[in-house]
């Protein structure tokens, strides 16, 4: 086998074009005759749309056409891809989600009209001249207030602002209540999981194109899953069948979940291009992205943990309000439920768990999946309450965790999932080593000399990724399957192209995926190219999110490559006049077992396309295979994280001194890329824990509406990380034994940071401080110290 197969830290081949400016992002695409779109958006959070007057704007230079909600009457709204069933067995309340506002506006940024002009600046100038008359209505921003009787309704046709009241597992409710009532000790924690604005480096872009000669529509868009957009937009919004609609997502500069969803601007540009018979391009402004990209998190939670005298966990009960925003974004209902409630067992054998989630409509931007999606919210509350419990019962927080670890696998949790493999003791042992926990006291003494309070925060996490078994998620309300696809095309001279439904927008698939195929055949990875992001090229696939690409997409690629190898062996057998069963493939050569006869990979691929000497009576010429892979279970990456901070007791400023992560991702394809994924995830987690906060005022105006007030983590906010993924318990149900690593860092790190800050304050004598909500800003730390 040449170097560079599974387990090699090959450098990212895509970085050459990204770092030299030769990438091809959606905004780099400019079509002949293209017009530009500028959206007129609501400046108020809630109001009745009385009049949209476009007369003056229509006369402005370069204006081609102005669209308003009227143009979309009778056209489908944006669909929601998941229906959650509530505690009583009723479907959630599901409001209409128009492309352009119909009658009402429901959040700042809600699109009202669109100006199409010859240049972008002309479109913006004219958009400002569109006169919008809105009767402002009282806005609901606070989730609990939104559920009060008589609260203003976001959607007049719904019975209330409650989307659903979900109980999980409902049958366990009474048993959990009873266990908590009778427990030796109950620790209660109320907390907020702060709302985040995703801020991918590349803002969203959509270009609609229409060929009047063929009747074909094309959408170029910044999506993590072009096939999903083709299905949702084609079938539910615009009524274009898939064979007349192509969706292309070229290089995409980060998504973090925010580019999973089908957005109004995509449907609009596709629709308008057909109406105008000319391409229509929209590029999001950064300030526009703050009020239109789906936000993340935004939970308000009360969690109770019941313990026995010796620290054994008896029961967990949680009560969460989850913000949906003004409309249901594509997968929003599933995030606080199936991606959150099912993880409430964590790494522990708590026998009884009950999760209640009330999803609430408010006059804010829709909230949906953001790196981790539900699992960070589960991990944060569980790992925070465990830390608090340890302090209350006077037990070491690591010892308390170890006491309750799941140690035997497979393990069926009381929240409906079955962990196939794991070794939480091993990852905790590894963490204690790489974080040098024994040296903490010495480091704390050094911090003290500088007048700083040092704290240590440790936590575990588990996540469910490799999303997801289609039959299972179908039962849970998903309106889509969650398989993945791959077509492996072998060319005559032996090179391969893999067309995958997985989409790379920073993950490095173009480097790591070829390593798998190359390893299977025994060739150099440079012989394998990855194609993705074009529905005309790749078979129907579900895209990239939920740390699913290597576990599900990679498995599809393995299955397709297995078919290739099986066929190639038949061809090789024919060439060597041997039996199929005797053919072995090693290091890119086929040989007949027990003989010195062999043919090279290239001989076989050439024979497949120049079939002069070929078993045409048995098999077809050519060498191209497709596979669809549907996983039989989720995968369960898990690990243990440690963070050390220094708190300045005079100013409240927190400095992250060190961060260590011991992860179990199962088998690893490219360790360097895995390191990078963990680094990025921890960076985002530190961002959530210390800096990022999306804040609305009570009228629904976005206060953190730019980088002047929304604090993104920067290089000097994070330390050099110490990451380790040598603890590997391979996944038992996918062919690669992989679990996925994309979200772990963002899931596991926020509680470590907050645990560390609370620990620092406790050690510094501020024993009344048991919790500080994220972001743990200097002002909040100082206020907490004041009591």
């Amino acid at each position, binding site marked *: 086998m040449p170097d560079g197969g599974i387990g090699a830290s090959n450098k990212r081949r895509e970085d050459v074009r990204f770092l030299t400016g030769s990438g091809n992002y959606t905004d780099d695409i400019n079509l002949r005759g293209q017009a530009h779109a500028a959206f007129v958006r609501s400046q108020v959070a809630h109001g009745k749309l009385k009049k949209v007057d476009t007369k003056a704007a229509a006369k402005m230079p370069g204006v081609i056409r102005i669209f308003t909600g009227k143009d979309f009457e009778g056209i489908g709204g944006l669909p929601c891809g998941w229906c959650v069933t509530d505690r009583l067995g009723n479907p959630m309340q599901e409001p209409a989600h128009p492309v352009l506002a119909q009658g009402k506006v429901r959040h700042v940024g809600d699109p009202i009209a669109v100006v199409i002009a010859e240049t972008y600046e002309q479109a913006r100038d004219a958009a400002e001249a569109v006169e919008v008359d809105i009767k402002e209505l009282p806005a609901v921003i606070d989730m609990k207030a939104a559920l009060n009787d008589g609260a203003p309704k976001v959607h007049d046709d719904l019975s209330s602002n409650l989307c659903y009241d979900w109980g999980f597992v409902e049958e366990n409710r009474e048993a959990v209540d009873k266990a908590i009532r009778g427990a030796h000790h109950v620790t209660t924690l109320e907390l907020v999981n702060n709302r985040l604005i995703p801020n991918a480096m590349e803002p969203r872009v959509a270009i609609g194109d229409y060929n009047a000669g063929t009747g074909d529509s094309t959408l170029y868009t910044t999506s993590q899953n072009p096939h999903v957009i083709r299905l949702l937009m084609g079938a539910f919004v615009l009524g274009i069948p898939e064979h007349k609609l192509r969706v292309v997502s070229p290089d995409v500069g980060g998504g973090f979940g925010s580019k999973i969803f089908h957005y109004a601007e995509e449907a609009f540009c596709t629709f308008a291009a057909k109406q105008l018979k000319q391409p229509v391009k929209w590029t999001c402004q950064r300030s526009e992205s703050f009020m239109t990209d789906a936000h993340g998190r935004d939970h308000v939670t009360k969690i109770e943990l019941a313990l026995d005298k010796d620290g054994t966990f008896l029961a967990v009960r949680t009560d969460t309000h989850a913000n949906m925003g003004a409309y249901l974004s594509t997968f929003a209902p599933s995030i606080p439920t199936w991606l959150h409630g099912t993880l409430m067992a964590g790494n522990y054998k708590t026998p009884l768990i009950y999760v209640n989630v009330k999803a609430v409509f408010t006059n804010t931007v829709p909230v949906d999946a953001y790196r981790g999606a539900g699992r960070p919210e589960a991990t944060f509350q569980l790992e925070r309450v465990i830390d608090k419990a340890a302090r209350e019962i006077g037990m070491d927080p690591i010892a308390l965790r170890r006491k309750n670890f799941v140690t035997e696998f497979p393990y069926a949790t009381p929240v409906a999932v079955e962990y196939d493999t794991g070794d939480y003791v091993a990852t905790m042992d590894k963490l204690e080593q790489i974080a040098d926990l024994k040296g903490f006291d010495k480091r704390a003494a050094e911090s003290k000399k500088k007048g700083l309070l040092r704290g240590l925060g440790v936590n575990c996490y588990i996540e469910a990724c490799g999303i997801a078994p289609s039959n299972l998620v179908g039962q849970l309300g998903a309106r889509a399957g969650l398989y993945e696809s791959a077509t492996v095309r072998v060319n005559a001279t032996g090179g391969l192209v893999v067309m995958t439904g997985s989409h790379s927008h920073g993950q490095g698939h173009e480097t790591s995926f070829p390593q798998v195929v190359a390893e299977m055949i025994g060739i150099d990875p440079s012989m394998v190219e990855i194609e993705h992001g074009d529905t005309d090229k790749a078979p129907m696939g579900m895209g990239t999110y939920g740390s699913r690409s290597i576990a599900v997409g990679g498995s599809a690629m393995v299955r397709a490559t297995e078919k290739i190898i099986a066929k190639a062996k038949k061809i090789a057998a024919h060439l060597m006049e041997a039996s199929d069963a005797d053919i072995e493939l090693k290091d890119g050569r086929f040989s007949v077992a027990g003989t010195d006869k062999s043919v090279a990979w290239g001989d076989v691929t050439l024979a497949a396309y120049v079939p002069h000497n070929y078993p045409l009576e048995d098999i077809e010429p050519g060498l191209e295979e497709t596979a669809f892979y549907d996983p039989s279970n989720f995968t369960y990456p898990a690990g243990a994280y440690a963070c050390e901070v220094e708190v300045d007791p005079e100013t409240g400023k927190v400095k992250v001194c060190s961060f260590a992560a011991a992860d179990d991702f199962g088998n690893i394809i490219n360790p360097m890329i895995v390191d990078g994924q963990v680094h990025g995830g921890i960076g985002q987690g530190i961002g959530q824990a210390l800096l990022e906060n999306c804040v609305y005022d009570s009228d629904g105006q976005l206060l953190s509406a730019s980088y*002047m007030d929304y604090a993104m983590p920067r290089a000097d906010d994070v330390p050099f990380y110490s990451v380790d993924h040598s603890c590997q318990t391979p996944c038992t149900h996918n062919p690669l034994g992989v679990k996925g690593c994309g979200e772990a860092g963002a899931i596991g790190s926020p509680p470590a940071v907050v645990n560390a800050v609370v620990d620092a304050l406790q050690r510094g004598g501020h024993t009344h401080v048991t919790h500080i909500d994220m972001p743990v800003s200097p002002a909040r730390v100082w206020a907490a110290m004041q009591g």
Partner: protein
Amino acid sequence: MYNFDIARPQTVKDAVKALKDDEAQPLGGGQTLIPTLKARLAAPSVLVSLTGISELVGVCRDDDGRICIGAATSHARVAKECAKSYKALAALAARIGDPAVRNRGTIGGSLANNDPSACYPAAALASTATIVTNKREIAADKFFQGMFTTALKDGEIITEVRFVVPQKANYQKFEQPASRFALVGVFVAKFDDGVRVAVTGAAEDGVFRWKAAEQALSKSFKPEVLTDLSAPADRMIGDLHGSPEYRAHLVKVLTGRAVKAA
């Protein structure tokens, strides 16, 4: 941004002439104005760029030993050229924004804009600077007149800023986490005849002097004398990043640190 014309005068005289247009606006390094234009929050008819006027660029010392900085001098140049002559001022300039901001932004632009969170106003006010314009000389004590408000009149251009170098001085900045402007910044300057303490970032009216601290420090230039003082919270800014009380607290902490470091 909206369309505008740009004028690039070579002399102050030509700049003043160009500014006669009703909707004309002077452009320094553009580190505030250009983002404002991009956000479509301003629509000048003509921008009069001052950075090409060579007489406005540079650092020198006058006969009184004052440091004289041309209004169109970049922060980066101040950081470099005042490193020996006025260390505290150079250190302040070296920590404004990021390298791009420091290489474009100018001292005159910063003072004329008088952003309540900008760093330079604290230095000017604490160092009894004189703001020289094409028309007159204005003492720093009279120049800053509230948030984004100064004594400058229409058509008046800052040409130079003259700093008296204190015996001891230090600037302490506590950054707002998102913008990294000063959430609170305190410039302490000790002169023969007393101490001046100028505070930026904290107050609704912009930069101000904390006179109680000045009096105490003038008697004894030690951080301990601040122990029983507290900065008044009643005119402090309260926002996402900190309450008025927190800002008042930081004023005291940073003043103490500046005295210690001076």
